[in-house]
């Protein structure tokens, strides 16, 4: 496999990257890309605080954006690695790694990615990123409600399940819409797509 080699004087320009056939990426390149996408997950989770929350425990799930996009670009095991980096990075930055918040984040994120990958595999081109995102958001919310019932609130907490699943669908649609738009319009992603299409 021939990865693109940087020129001695610097890096290839974006136009050089975007033009013509591109070689298949090496494993190191894929890992580097996943690390970058992990950083974008953390970045989008910091943007989340800019939006008002209708409920204290509600999250839009913007950090899921890079995961949604990565699903279309890299093999499944790298998507799972990205999710692991996302939850660990989030736990380290926020200091919640040793608390129940991490358990919820871990459970919700992995439930979401397994469902999204499954749906994407089954439906392929027949489902948009909006649909995948909604499935992921529902899975994440159901698992988090289950964890909160089991570890924190007790059985009576199931009464809030419809509300939280409803909010999950709403946030899933919003995140999915933005992911779809970004996937179709971003020139940066177009270059990345061309590069990783060879893998």
């Amino acid at each position, binding site marked *: 496999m021939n990865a693109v080699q940087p020129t001695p004087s610097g890096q290839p320009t974006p136009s050089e990257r975007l033009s013509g056939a591109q070689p298949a990426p090496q494993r190191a390149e894929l*890992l580097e890309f996943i690390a970058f996408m992990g950083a974008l997950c953390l970045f989008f989770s910091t943007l989340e605080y800019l939006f008002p929350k209708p409920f204290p425990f509600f999250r839009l799930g913007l950090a899921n954006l890079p995961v949604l996009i990565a699903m279309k670009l890299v093999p499944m095991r790298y998507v799972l690695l990205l999710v692991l980096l996302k939850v660990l990075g989030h736990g380290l930055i926020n200091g919640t790694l*040793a608390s129940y918040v991490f358990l919820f984040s871990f459970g919700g994120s992995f439930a979401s990615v397994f469902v999204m990958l499954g749906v994407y595999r089954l439906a392929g081109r027949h489902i948009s990123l909006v649909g995948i995102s909604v499935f992921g958001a529902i899975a994440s919310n159901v698992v988090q409600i289950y964890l909160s019932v089991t570890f924190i609130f007790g059985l009576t907490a199931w009464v809030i399940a419809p509300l939280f699943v409803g909010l999950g669908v709403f946030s899933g649609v919003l995140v999915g819409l933005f992911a779809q738009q970004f996937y179709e319009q*971003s020139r940066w992603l177009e270059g990345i797509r061309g590069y990783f299409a060879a893998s």
Partner: protein
Amino acid sequence: MATSQRRDPFMARHFAPQHLFLTGALLIPAFLFQPNLFVRVGQVLLFAQLATANGKRIKWIYFVVMVSSVTVFNLFTPFGEILFTVGPLSITRGALQSGLEKGVTIVGLVFVSLASIRPDLRLPGRLGGMIGRVFYYFERVIEGKKRIRPRRLIESLDEILFELYRPGERRAEADGPLRSTTTLGYAAMAMLVGLNWALVFLASPIGT
């Protein structure tokens, strides 16, 4: 450099990240084995103070809502002596105490975590190396945050992304300064762990 070090929170100046993590790991069982609810509340306040000393901002309203909601949900499973009734619901001592204990414990564990974990804590192995790369890029992405324009969101994001990552390009590893634990840090660590473990044996349980 001296200026930035002066601005660092107390924990960052006096604790190596792995020693801070170890302190948290030793505090957790001392907190969980604490039989007295009032002492446990005191520990929660201490941990909140430590989290602040670690540079974390405590959102009290979030934690008040957390303890209240856990307690309220617990009240729906009554047991023990009836204290009073609210409409059809009997408020029992057992349910109230158990709900408060659970809520306070959950919040305390979050505070210990906030107090003992810093982004420069390096996890071992290749996964730790990957996390290091994530933080390397994260710091650079954050620098571009102010250049995001909501009206031309995708274009402005593209500009930043083009600057930060192009496939095939590998950037130098950015190693942060290595922190070591000071004498004051070791003393604080011994005092915190000693105090919290002593309270396990000295405090008597309440509600019995």
